[in-house]
């Protein structure tokens, strides 16, 4: 098979798997939240509610598509796509098992981080193009927040990169064969916790969901979106969330490593399991905290997370310099 066709095929499969996974992760989150809140959660559609995500998607497809009269039509219509694209694109460099991925770039982590922060463009387009005050305020908040949190997010993600001595995702996983980076004394745990906090903010989850903030801004930047455009935004958000969970599992929890991981499928299952674990931790936090205020969010980022991750990165640097890059 020519390489281009091979990549196209793999890309197609990964895209569909990701979208399928995203739909079902919503069900997982809803069931998990329901457990936390002493409810049952969705259970009408299909056995034990298993068809609920499909019903949701169908409903959204059938909804009327409304464009506000005073909206900037071009930007408004383009925004969901501009938002979704980077969120899907981050899966391009994720290897799900040895050799099982679209493109295992030698700058994979960098690519992931760079592309994932592009979502802000689509988000701001949506907020601006809607010509709605709630959406506008939300878009402003989003820019504030994402610029502030991308730095600690990147710095925390670079701790494993330094430890592994490579930006290539598969190399980072291989470097954890002896010891997962989360188990690395002190540095690993600190970096993982900081990474999780920054993840919450980068994904706009409670307690950092000020740009959605439905009790203040109704639904934030997507308040005017309906039907399929709304579905695309939802899809992008969850794709981003799962992508980040996968990144967390890859950087800190050893990716596909685990008993029997040499079979690609078992490795992929391990990876999925770990990513879901990270996702559930994020969900758990989401359903137990109240939202914090915009000025506090910025203060937490600039006064706490950024210095902490910087110091951590520096310490890791010294450590790696002392022991040599590949001691693992």
């Amino acid at each position, binding site marked *: 098979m020519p390489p281009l066709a091979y990549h196209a095929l793999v890309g197609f499969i990964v895209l569909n798997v990701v979208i399928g996974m995203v739909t079902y992760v919503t069900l997982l989150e809803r069931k998990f*939240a329901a457990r*936390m*809140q*002493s*409810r049952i959660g969705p259970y009408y559609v299909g056995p034990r509610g298993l068809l609920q995500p499909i019903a949701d998607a169908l409903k959204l497809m059938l909804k009327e598509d409304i464009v506000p009269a005073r909206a900037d039509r071009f930007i408004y219509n383009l925004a969901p796509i501009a938002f979704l694209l980077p969120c899907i694109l981050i899966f391009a460099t994720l290897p799900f098992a040895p050799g099982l991925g679209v493109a295992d770039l030698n700058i994979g982590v960098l690519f992931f981080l760079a592309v994932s922060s592009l979502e802000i463009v689509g988000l701001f387009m949506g907020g601006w193009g809607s010509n709605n*005050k*709630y959406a*506008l*305020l939300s878009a402003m*908040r989003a820019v504030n927040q994402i610029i502030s949190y991308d730095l600690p997010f990147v710095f925390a993600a670079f701790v494993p990169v330094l430890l592994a001595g490579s930006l290539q995702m598969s190399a980072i996983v291989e470097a954890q064969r002896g010891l997962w980076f989360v188990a690395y004394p002190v540095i690993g745990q600190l970096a993982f916790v900081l990474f999780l906090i920054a993840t919450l903010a980068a994904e706009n989850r*409670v*307690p950092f*969901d*000020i740009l*959605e*903030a*439905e*009790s*203040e*801004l*109704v639904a934030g930047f997507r308040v005017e979106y309906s039907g399929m455009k709304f579905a695309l935004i939802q899809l992008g958000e969850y794709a981003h969330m799962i992508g980040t969970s996968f990144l967390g599992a890859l950087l800190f929890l050893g990716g596909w490593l685990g008993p029997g991981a040499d079979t690609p499928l078992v490795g992929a299952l391990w990876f999925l399991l770990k990513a879901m674990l990270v996702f559930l931790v994020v969900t758990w936090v*989401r*359903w*137990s*905290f*109240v*939202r*914090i*205020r*915009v*000025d*506090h969010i910025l203060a937490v980022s600039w006064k706490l997370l950024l210095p902490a991750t910087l110091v951590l990165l520096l310490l890791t640097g010294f450590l790696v310099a002392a022991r040599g890059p590949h001691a693992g």
Partner: protein
Amino acid sequence: MADTLARSTVEIGYGGSERLTMNMGPQHPSAHGVFRAILTLEGETVVAIDAVIGYLHRCHEKLAETLTYVQYPTIASKTDYVSAMTAELAYVAAVELVGKIDVPRRAQYLRVICAELQRIASHCLWLGTWCMDMGGALGGGATIFLYAIRERELILDLFETLTGARLLYGFHQVGGTRYDIPAGWAQQCRETLAVITQRLGEYEAMLEANAFFLVRTQGVGVISRDLAEHVGVAGPLLRGSGVAYDLRTAAPYSSYEDFGVRVPVESAGDCFARYRVRMAEFRESIRLVHAALDGLPEGPISSRPGVKSVGQVRIPKGEGYSRVEGARGEVGCYLVADGGPKPYRLKWRGASFSNLAVLPHIIPGHKVADVVAIMGSVDPVFGEVDR
């Protein structure tokens, strides 16, 4: 003060320093019904708030003039539908005051039990909605909301066993109560209260150990003691600002003097202080219900004989003002009787209405996110504001 500022705003342009006028309500996820706040923003900071009420006005006071003393108690509960027992009690107390009607001791105790259960139920809803305002319907707030509603349902189950209704009860009647407690109800009530006592501890553990919750509530929306007295706020707001004023001790009604009500007071005046006051009131109400159940005297539950027509109860000419301590503060009912079967005039004093008046004094200077936190801590019910 707020009005002139709010009117002189400029729509946002491209310069970056303009003010933005933003509507919150009447249709808004945190409008607590139908409240419209016209906010004037500079960035994220609120510089002025213009409050618009009246979307739920139902001519309640006029309605009271068209209904007889037998009919109206069930309708009175619709002013504050979250704590329906309060307005019923205020109305019948006013009628009894003007008509100089004695209420049997057993009925007075039953009224105390219902009033305190109602306070617990109302505070449950307050806790849930307030946390939902701060925490988001898709976040931790919804979790607390569902927990609190679960507890409120337990109280509503008690009311359903007692009166057959879950929202608007029609429990009170002029001269006493309409229903006596059924067999086994006291035991059911004690068990429910034990459950709620235990869960209150869980909420406090969940909220007060949460740094985000503290940062959202402490020092936010401070009502100074002077301001509280000047504006005339009542209930938990007043007690959260350091004024130990509670009608149950200041002007006892319905045998409250028998129980030695302990009034919780906090001096900080912020959202957290109001939260603390209400959490203490939960426990105090639970204690009062236990005390009233313990000391429940035997005897008739109403001094009024059964009536055969709705116009049969007549009150001699006169006027009077009765007031009770509701979950949100002082609820008053001013009644003018002309000797007929219906009131000549009726005026409600809603606690939510006067509490809401404090908003323009405390909100400017806060962030948008604090507006909902402050509004939730004021705990308005718009049925009572607009009547």
